[in-house]
Each structure stands twice: as structure tokens, then as C-alpha cells.
């Protein structure tokens, strides 16, 4: 987290800790000191590599909880058991499921974002994908008890990457955020990507305006 301080500046990055004082991770992580892959030993998801996070008041209790994305396509929730001013994150994540089946974003590489995409007053989850495209998991639950339908395609993975030097649509490993880009009152999408071009790498930023 980079805490915002006055005049649009940010404090140095700091790792988020859970209530037991451990660095908050889904499971697997790269140990930069030991230079090897490690896993959180007490986590039942120690093999799962977390790669993205966003914050939302999941349970409508007035503080921000975390929604975590993973390399293998699953989505996790880490509840804040403290308060908005003194967060105390749970020591374990909960995988987002439909019944007993974990929800998975096709193409994996989930970096979740929160937005009320359909304007029904409930927050939804958006995500890009390792295979490209953008997916929407619609909140079909209630305030304080969200529940999510399986992923729906908002943007199809590009069938043809075409001329990689001059692409006309996003490539792979997409990352998405929803915003009213042009101030017209509805949510548009910003999509970042990874696009190779004969050995050169690019990460473009695409705007999809809502019709």
C-alpha cells in the first residue's frame, strides 16, 4: 500500500499485515532474500500465487476488506476484522465459490477490480485475463452478503492479434479498471495489456467507451 499524504503525494510502499502480524499473502510468493519460491505455511492455499488486490467494503460493516486475485484464476476475500482506522485482516483468505465450486476467470491471471458495472447498486467484480479479454462477475447477492455469478465476457479475447506493431485491440495478460472516462455519467473501461512485437514488448492502454 502507498498511503496518500497531503498535496497529492504518497508515502513509501508498505506491506500489509494480517492481524497476527504476518505479511498478507494468498499463499505462494517469491522470497526476494532467499531467491526462491516459498509458501505461507499456515495457509490452506500455500500453492496459490496471489498477483492482484483491490479493496471494497465486502460485508458492509464500514471498513475496507481485500479482494485478491490469483495466477490460477481464482478470487479470494480477506476480511478486515478491525475497523477503517485500525484494520485487522483475517489470517486466512476465503475462496470465492458458487456452492462448492471455486469461481475461476478463464485464461487465469486474475487482477480484480470493483465496480457496479450494471448499475444495480451492488458492487461487481471485473477482471482481465492471461488469455486477454475482460470478464464480469455479477453480484447476485445482497448488501453485506455478496454472491457472484460465473464470469461473463465483456470483452472477448482478441481472435487475431493482427499487426503487432499496430494492434487494433488489446493483447494478452489484460488488466482492467472501470471509470467514467469522459464524464458522461456511465462507466467506461480502461484495459492494459501485454503485446509482443517480434521481440519487442509493449504494454498499451486501451479505452472502451460504453455505448
Amino acid at each position, binding site marked *: 500500500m502507498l498511503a496518500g499524504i497531503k498535496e497529492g503525494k504518497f508515502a513509501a*510502499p508498505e506491506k500489509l499485515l494480517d492481524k497476527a502480524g504476518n505479511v498478507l499473502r494468498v499463499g505462494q510468493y517469491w522470497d526476494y532474500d532467499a531467491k526462491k519460491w516459498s509458501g505461507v505455511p499456515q495457509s490452506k492455499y500455500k500453492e496459490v500465487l496471489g498477483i492482484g488486490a483491490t479493496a471494497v467494503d465486502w460485508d458492509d460493516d464500514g471498513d475496507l476488506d481485500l479482494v485478491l486475485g490469483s495466477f490460477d484464476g481464482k478470487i479470494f476475500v480477506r476480511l478486515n476484522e478491525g475497523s477503517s482506522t485500525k484494520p485487522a485482516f483475517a489470517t486466512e483468505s476465503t475462496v470465492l465459490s458458487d456452492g462448492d465450486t471455486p469461481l475461476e476467470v478463464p485464461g487465469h491471471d486474475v487482477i480484480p477490480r470493483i465496480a457496479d458495472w450494471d448499475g444495480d447498486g451492488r458492487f461487481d467484480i471485473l477482471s482481465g485475463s492471461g488469455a486477454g479479454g475482460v470478464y464480469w462477475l455479477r453480484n447476485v447477492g445482497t448488501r453485506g452478503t455478496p454472491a457472484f455469478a460465473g464470469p461473463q465476457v465483456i470483452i472477448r479475447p482478441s481472435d487475431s492479434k493482427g499487426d503487432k506493431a499496430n494492434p487494433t485491440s488489446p493483447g494478452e495478460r489484460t488488466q482492467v479498471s472501470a471509470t467514467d472516462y*469522459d464524464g458522461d455519467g456511465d462507466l467506461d473501461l480502461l484495459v492494459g495489456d501485454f503485446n509482443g512485437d517480434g521481440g519487442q514488448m509493449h504494454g498499451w492502454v486501451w479505452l472502451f467507451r460504453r455505448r
Partner: protein
Amino acid sequence: MRLPRWLIASAFVSAMLARTLLAQEAPEIAPIRLEPPVRLKAGDEFIDTGKHVAHAGPLAVDLNADGMPDLLVGNFSGHFQVYMNAGTRAQPKYVDQGLLEAGGETAKVPNW
């Protein structure tokens, strides 16, 4: 020529398996429609995280509290590229401001 039973049974099982696989549902297509994509620029150059190992992660955020969203773009090196909005609310125009600083240094976060 009469076909052996094992061959007929094998073909039947293969057909049933194929039918099952084809019936598995692809993700639904959401009903909300979008305009064709536009690749964003800062000045005359496309915004690109390529020299920082690509993997662009964009976010619109009003960094200078002027009422207009600016653009923050994460990259694989763990940095954040900053593009300030020098246009209007309806027609943003971005100016490359380099990498985000935090705590007096170029901000960098681990990517694993």
C-alpha cells in the same frame, strides 16, 4: 462387412464424450455494449509500459485534485507511470510525468 461390436461401442462412447464436451458452456456474453477500443496517447506517443517489461495496469485517479482524472499505469517492473490530464473532463489529454515517487524515491513494489 459387419463391424465388430467393440468398434461400434468405441465409436458410441467417443460420440457421447464429444457431445458432452461440446455442451460445456463458454462464459456468457454480457449484454452491455462497448465502442471499439482506442489506444491512449500521451502527446503524440502511445502510452506504453514496454521499457518496463510491459504488462500495463491502468487506473484513472485525480492525482492533483483539480477535478479531472489523471492516469496511473503500473508496469511489470513494479513502477507506476504518471500521466497528468491537461485537457478537459470530456476530452482528456495526457502529459507524461515519468514515474511516481513515494516517500522521496521512485515508488517500486514487488510483482510476485
